[in-house]
């Protein structure tokens, strides 16, 4: 964390965001806004834990922590700790620079508190299923009555209109619908072998940032706020534009080509020395092919007519890949990247987390930032999505703990007295602990 002089201006300094986002898509939108200086206030509720947000389970079992992969069990030292919901990597990764306040908005007084916060804010972001905010009493009609020039970004899975508006989906399901799942995977294997990915959360979250910024820009010019309907699935579709255009032009249904490329050859993952070490190599041009051959030591097989040009190499890729793999098996992945890149051939190792923390380029760019968190200790965190020279973003505060900023939000922003604060604490609006009856997610039972 950098100790920036207080009050140093960032691009979004002065913008306040009411953040009711959950899981990953909306939270990614508000992450970038907080990084760039907006005051992002997460509105949370000690009596209601949204699904998959502060951990896949609010209080993960020992068996989950011991047996599962890092997404579900990414807790410091694999221990849940007293408040697991302040320690989950899947939440803390995006919660830096954000503030957290609590109010039980399912009760009238809590709802009123949220509205008082909306009244002094510029932006509201939510990505619950269509209809949830309306039922809560925080649909756009009500929100804009409280704050007429607010920019409200609503980003449900399928959007706020259309026959599927009410459907429940995770990011990976939207990739299934957008066609992405069938456009990746091994060409020779059944799709049941295709590993789920959650790229849609990243796609929708990034588009959410752009959407809010277009509306803030318009508001600055005209004074008008507005409602933005963002269907997460519609942010993935344009990212698969070639497949859409091919169908539109030729009614061709594209299928997975694995790691191969429509015209580059070779293009693949080749095994290197060590366990599960691989190098990615892509050869677009004849010049790059010559360079690759030179790095391989100009082997005689490379002069076979079947590898003469890109077209013939594409036709004989299985054979080509075998020859290249025989060579790469004896090589070290990073060393090969350096030698191939020196010749202008696109190549790079399969990187895992450990590699990233050792990588000299990432280190020199200062991508990781050290952060000390009161309940997690000190670690390196993935940092800024981009660099700005005059107003650089940085991790200025650790990930927000549940209710950590209640004193600031209630007393300084909303002007609540000490007596009133104590009463709201007693009545379960203000707090730093989820109700003990919530184990997985959802509502407190009493």
């Amino acid at each position, binding site marked *: 964390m950098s100790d920036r002089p207080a009050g140093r201006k960032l691009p979004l*300094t002065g913008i306040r965001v009411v953040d009711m986002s959950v899981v990953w898509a909306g939270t990614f939108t508000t992450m970038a806004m907080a990084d760039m200086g907006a005051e992002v206030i997460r509105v949370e509720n000690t009596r209601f834990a949204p699904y998959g947000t502060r951990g896949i389970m609010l209080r993960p079992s020992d068996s989950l922590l011991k047996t599962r992969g890092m997404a579900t069990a990414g807790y410091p030292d694999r221990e849940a700790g007293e408040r697991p919901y302040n320690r989950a990597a899947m939440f803390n990764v995006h919660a830096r620079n954000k503030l957290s306040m609590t109010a039980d908005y399912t009760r009238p007084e809590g709802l009123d508190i949220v509205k008082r916060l909306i009244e002094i804010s510029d932006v509201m972001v939510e990505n619950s299923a269509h209809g949830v905010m309306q039922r809560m009493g925080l649909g756009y009609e009500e929100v804009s009555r409280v704050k007429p020039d607010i920019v409200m970004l609503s980003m449900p899975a399928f959007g706020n209109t259309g026959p599927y508006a009410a459907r429940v989906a995770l990011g990976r399901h939207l990739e299934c619908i957008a066609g992405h799942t069938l456009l990746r995977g091994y060409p020779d294997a059944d799709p049941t072998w295709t590993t789920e990915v959650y790229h849609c959360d990243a796609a929708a979250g990034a588009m959410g940032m752009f959407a809010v910024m277009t509306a803030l820009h318009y508001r600055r010019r005209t004074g008008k706020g507005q409602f933005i309907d963002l269907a997460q699935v519609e942010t993935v579709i344009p990212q698969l534009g070639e497949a*859409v255009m091919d169908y539109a032009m030729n009614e061709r249904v594209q299928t997975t080509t694995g790691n191969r490329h429509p015209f580059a050859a070779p293009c693949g993952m080749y095994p290197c020395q060590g366990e599960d070490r691989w190098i990615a190599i892509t050869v677009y041009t004849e010049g790059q092919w010559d360079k690759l051959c030179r790095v391989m030591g100009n082997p005689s097989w490379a002069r076979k007519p079947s590898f003469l040009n890109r077209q013939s190499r594409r036709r004989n890729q299985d054979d080509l890949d075998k020859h290249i793999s025989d060579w790469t098996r004896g090589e070290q992945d990073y060393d090969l990247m350096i030698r191939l890149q020196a010749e202008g051939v696109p190549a790079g190792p399969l990187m895992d987390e450990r590699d990233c923390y050792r990588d000299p380029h990432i280190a020199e760019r200062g991508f990781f930032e050290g952060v000390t968190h009161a309940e997690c200790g000190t670690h390196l965190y993935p940092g800024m999505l981009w660099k700005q020279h005059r107003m650089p973003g940085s991790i200025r505060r650790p990930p927000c703990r549940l209710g950590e900023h209640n004193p600031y939000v209630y007393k300084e922003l909303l002007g609540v007295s000490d007596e009133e604060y104590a009463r709201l604490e007693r009545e379960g609006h203000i707090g730093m602990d989820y109700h003990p009856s919530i184990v997985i997610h959802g509502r407190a039972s009493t």
Partner: protein
Amino acid sequence: MNDSALSDIKVLDLTWYIAGPYCTKLLSDYGAEVVKVERPGTGDPSRQLGPFPEDRPDSEAGGLFLHLNTNKKGITLDIKSEFGKNALKELVKRADVLVESFSPRVLPSLGLDYKDFREVNPALVMCSISNFGQTGPYRDYRLSELVLNAMGTCMKMVGQPDREPLKLGGSILQYQAGVLAASATMIALYGAMDGQGEHVDLSLFETCLGSIDRRAPYLLAHQYTGQKEVTQRVGGGRGGIMAGCPEGIYPCKDGYFDVAGGVAWWEKNFALLGKPPELADPVYGTPDGQMDPARQDEILSVLYPWAMERTKQEISKAAEEARAAAAPLYSTEDLLKDPHFQERGSFVEIDHPHAGRLRYPGAPFRPALTPWRMERPAPMLGEHNEEVYAGLGYGEADLARLRSEGLI
């Protein structure tokens, strides 16, 4: 147009291929005036990439180029010539934003870096998009979508454990960098309204490492869990990242569907399967029951026959009623024919002189007051030379001369 969000912004676009053009497409689709500068003769190399109508190569009808350059104006200019450098500076003077995707040494070597542009336009917001950023030991390295997947930690966990790791589909990570570049540009512009300008340095590699999905979260999880463990590839029916069963992709009568599992979803999944009595014991929904291979076999022995009797649309409908998180695996054809996207108008048709009337991907979000628009198709090479150069004071005779000298 007054009802476009960005109608007061002028963008100079020095980008090609995917990430940069997608960034400037987003700006132009929401109303900015984008002037795309291409090299004379060949233009953006993505013009040579397909898909093409009837697979006949035509640099004015490439699907990728048409998709990524809607609503832009196109000019040609040899920026390496003296004339080109001066004309570019004239254009920069008139722009609010410059987006470029040259490799980091190119513009400085031409005397055209951020400092040079600032001299003619101190308020300029410049967004530089590059493979690995403007600094660092890999700054000159080449990238492909595959290399980006591999180095960006996207592939490590995708595929079967005993086979090669797999990339994501198409060129999706380059598009993703383009969206983040558009966000960065707008955020920088918002902060630069004091007239002081800004330079954004966006690295495709870092946009990948820093993004949600399992890239950034796993990087942090690795730190948290003591730097011992790295992610492994998982896949196949029981292998999703969420603990439990059913969890993953399963076959059905006419294709495949994906259902999310684990303790959090068991009640919904039980309802999806029609509350079969043999799975009524609450133990199936406990963390231990969800993880027990014997219990998982029992769940799957109900799920497989249930699924094989149903089409993917029937399963979608049942999931909606049960509030379960499940979806069919669609082909692009399924997607374009789906009633939800037809009703929302998620694809729009527009005419193009070479490619004809085609459907394109539509609005990625819908602001109530400032709608997305599709006013014109991608420009043909140099289509707006007369208009744009007239604005710089060049007449017809000048253009003829420049054309004959290969400068535009």
